[in-house]
């Protein structure tokens, strides 16, 4: 038999060429998806906690201000995790023997810290400061999402650099008046629901944003995306 390759070999040869191309493209796409997946970012994941603390209940339900627990959010890079004492301020009065609160009481009784699991955990070469964001009109919700509706706390944003850059390159799109920062029911300005800032009524976020930029002296995009802003 003179022919070494069967007739079908031609088809195989050509399709295999196409397949290789498709495969490479597929791998690339997969990698791109993977690096943004919750598996890598922990986005939306609710880690195990010693006590199933519900922001929904405490914030929406009871209307407790963020700063009641996160005391240093306005004064320090770190927002502050409430010491057991803070919990006991109320829970020595109410739910005094709710079983789920036993760890808290135990902690207070034995003077032994609760060990929570970090929900928002930036890489350690990233230096984030709550202080400046909160003071420049970046609302809690802007990064933490609908924290007031979370029965169990999870990470709202990807916390990846590209996500940080989104705002740093376009601050106007997220800024709100300082006094609105901790307001969980704050609505972005819209024709129906204007936002008043320094006596002015604003119906477009961009207009409001630019006004705030001017008023608060927000640095320009090319400054805020400079490396030393977050890395040292």
């Amino acid at each position, binding site marked *: 038999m003179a022919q070494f390759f069967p007739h079908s070999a031609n088809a195989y040869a050509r399709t295999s060429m196409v397949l290789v191309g498709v495969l490479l493209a597929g791998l690339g796409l997969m*990698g791109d998806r*993977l*690096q943004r997946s919750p*598996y*890598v970012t*922990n986005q939306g994941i609710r*880690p195990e906690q010693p006590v199933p603390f519900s922001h929904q209940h405490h914030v929406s339900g009871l209307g407790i201000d963020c700063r009641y627990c996160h005391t*240093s959010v306005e*004064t*320090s*890079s*770190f927002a*502050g*995790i*409430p*010491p*057991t*004492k803070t919990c006991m301020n109320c829970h020595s009065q109410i739910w005094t023997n709710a079983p789920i609160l036993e760890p808290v009481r135990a*902690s*207070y009784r*034995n*003077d*032994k*810290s*609760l*060990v*929570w*699991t*970090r929900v928002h*955990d930036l*890489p*350690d*070469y990233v*230096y984030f*400061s709550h*202080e*400046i964001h909160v*003071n*420049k009109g970046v609302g809690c919700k802007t990064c933490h999402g609908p924290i007031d509706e979370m029965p169990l706390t999870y990470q709202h944003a990807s916390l990846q650099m590209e996500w940080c850059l989104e705002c740093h390159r376009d601050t106007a799109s997220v800024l709100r008046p300082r006094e609105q920062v901790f307001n969980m029911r704050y609505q972005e300005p819209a024709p129906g629901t204007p936002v008043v800032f320094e006596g002015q009524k604003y119906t477009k976020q961009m207009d409001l944003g630019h006004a705030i930029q001017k008023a*608060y*002296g927000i*640095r*320009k995009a*090319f*400054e805020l995306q*400079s*490396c*030393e*802003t977050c*890395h*040292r």
Partner: protein
Amino acid sequence: MAQDSENDLVRIQTTKKDLGLTAEHAREKLSGARGPQYWRSLQELTEDPEFDAMMEREFPRHASEWTDPVSRRGFLKLMSASMALAGLSACTKQPFEPIVPYVQQPEELIPGKPIYFATARPTPNGAYPLLVRSHEFRPVKIEGNPDHPASKSIPQGSYPAELRWGVTDAQSQASVLDLYNPERSQNVTFRGDTRTWGTFVGAIRDAFGAERGRGGAGLRILTDTVTSPTLAAQIKSVLQANPQAKWYQWDAMNRDNARTGAKLAFGQYVDAQYRLAEADVVVSLDADFLSGSHFPGFLAMSRDFISKRKLDLAGGEGEAAKMNRLYVIESQASTTGGKADDRLPMRACDVEQFAGALANALGVGGSNGTVKDDHAKTFLNALVKDLQATRGRSVIIPGEQQSPTVHALAAAMNSTLGNAGKTVLYTEPVEIVPTEQAAGLKELVADMNAGKVTLLVMIGVNPVFDAPSDLKFADAFEKVALRAHVGIYHDETSRLSHWHVPMTHYLESWSDTRAYDGTVSIVQPLIEPLYNGRSAHEVVAVFSENPGVTAYDAVQSYWKAQNKGATFEPFWNRALHDGFMPNTASPARPASARPAASALAPVNDELEIVFRPDPTIHDGRYINNGWLQELSKPITKLTWDNAAIMSFNTAKQLGVKDEDVVTLELNGAKVDAPVLVVPGHPDKTITAHYGYGRTTVGSVGTGTGFNAFLLRTAERSNYAAGVKVTAKSGERWRLALTQHHHLIETKKWKEDVVGSSQVGNEAASRDLVRSATFEEWRRTPGFANEGEHQAPSRDLTLYGEDGYKSWVDDPAKNAAHQWGMAIDMNSCIGCNACVVACQSENNIPVVGKEQVLAGREMLWLRIDTYFTTPNTNDVSNPRAFFQPIPCMQCENAPCEPVCPVGATVHSPEGLNNMVYNRCVGTRYCSNNCPYKVRRFNFLLFADFDTESYKSRNNPDVTVRSRGVMEKCTYCVQRITSARIHAEKETRKVRDGEIVTACQQTCPTDAITFGDITDKNSRVTRMKSNERNYTLLAELNTRPRTSYVAEIRNPNPEIAVTPEDHGHTS
């Protein structure tokens, strides 16, 4: 400084509660899961009830962990490791980290914000007043106390009021590292076996009880120089109760000569305090008062001395300008000599003769002295003329290591010249009970040999190592029935003692102390003893009626006694807050020196050896401190070793060269030492720094240097003639120099001896160091910017308008600030304080001798030293120039365009950013950096394993892992925190709000940092100075760091060929 505004809020008194927290937190670190475990003390293992009780008491309070460098470094480590395996950082999953809040948060703590505590570092010749930065109750960074007279920065009226910060010295900066050293002794031992404090007290009380009957005849207490009023009072009361007991003080670098000299001159012990701000002519008789804390009052003296050389400040530029003049007659090559306007090197023993001759010429009765060679004669005559012309405005400073006669003569001359009371004050000594320590130690040894001593308690001393060799201390020591040693480390003495008690670090326990001028500070602890240490107060209390008394009670009750009544509380709190008690400086004594008619010691022609404390590790007490070990010593640039330092000629005569091993032999005693040839060292003499060559030390100090104490006798403790030097053929001792000033070959290579002058020439021809004499500067104020080494015009760019200019010159595209730095060469005295400050602030790792030898030291800031020879190629007496080199933050940074991944880029504020987490380590940037200020982590230099050291790290700075380039960033973390502070108030950063670590610690304020677009900022004023120039300007790198050319003020009558403009030789 930025934090200042907050200081008053946060600089508060430490409460016991905090201490509990801090201790617990530290222990958390120590018993951390990662890395090797460091138990707090063996007691943990030997389940001691007392310990359990203590744990019960303190376990509860967990400290929080957020800004904790441990996790940061842990992560970096994890990252490098896992990425090495995974290979894809984007896909490396970050592990869940715990977050541990307090149970009850101390109210003064704002998590994530540092707190400042005022305290002081006691040293034998006066305390160094400090302001210590503490993160979550972990002392991290040492700063000087801005308010204390001894440590405040140059008090020029022309500075803005809020610009106050405290200055410090290298040893103080480094002392925080000792606190965390895991190799500190951690438990009470008896003959090496672990015991408890309780058993120790019991045993000592028993032995002491036996002595009680005979008035404590067998009890001897040996301490280092005591500057603590409380401790002195405690000991005195013990001695009162036991009249037969004796107390001795011993420091290897003691001030016996000064004391004896004072006796000769005044009939009483006094401290001379020099007011150099008043002196126009300063004469140093072998006094090395510019090179570090081993000279009493170093901070104030250098500050005052330099304040007379800041030409823009001392009477302004131009005609009005005035400048003091420094004559240095010295027996070694020191920074003081390097800064001298006129310098005369000679052997230590000749200094006495010279002093005699000088006194004679100044008409001090009964003195004589012969000066042989002609240059010395011209020098002397010119000096005399100068002194006579400046009566009352001159000062003569005798060296600590010079003979009592010299001290006496100096005192006599000062009063003859009418300087006493003006440029020099005589006050009561800084130590509470001044003694002549060598004599005391002799007496003690005699008693021990005579068997009179049954109980010897040694606190903070190591006599077995550093006592004069002829006293044979160790032998006598053996004869004492019960020997107890109290010290921070296990050392030679503790090894031969029955009992050893770990002592507290000064940051760990309460005490009080006096600065060199007598001002009293409360030593306030920032953290509870990490290693179960006990303070001297507690130990001495053992011999009192109430052994249980704590240091806190002892100190407080002492001061209660001092000021009775209701005023105590405010007084106490004020003292703690300010860090010192106002108006407690020792008053000047109206003392006039009598002409000292003492015969001068005869001078022979033998080879002489000079003993000096080591510039970095002092008398050996800091030998376990990696920062100080790796700190290149001024002038010699030597690290990790000491050496037999000699001149080129002496080396030639002895037929030896660098790194040869020689045997030094002095009346019987022998020791092997490496040779190091240093330009400017006098001939026929060898300088040996003591403190090295210890046998019982931690891993850092092991195997470093040779023990010069072996040659040092009680009689000749500072210099001795007749040392025999024999070269050991074939043997070499590698010396890790950070600047190879001997190996420079230019014209003719293989010419190692003339080498160092060649450096001078090379540096000169490259115009790196620019200086002129006072006269020349008067004639041509712009000398520094003449010659061909100028920056090309800014318009010379390929890109025209959209080029470089658009980014920095166009305000529209610009940030609110443009940072810049100016370094005043006139002010830099090369004392190294800034280098350690930088290391401490920026978590710079220590790499060890081998890596330094390989050329891989990591220090971001270095002090380049160039020698120049006014009289051509005479390397025996060169001038030294000290040039601190941080990153130049070039506007056209050559490092940036060559980085393939953009890990080093420019910030809108003109910083040359280094993004560690982006760096892949091609090292191209370093190759292309003309200033070679970049440092590379060739191996995993950062310490990821020692738990305790992690607590020391500055949490605001990333700890760099292996394979990453790093460099000076103008302390970008400080810039950022100040900027945030300002932005919160929607304003620009004020001038002086940002102070870099090096600038803050500089005793002479040589470094100025600020916004160069602000016309009124100090840095702008410095840069507008005519002497301002930039390094290698012709490369058009446009550095943001510039230098102010140095002016020397030599006496024209002393023949020195004038320096030509802008050139160093």
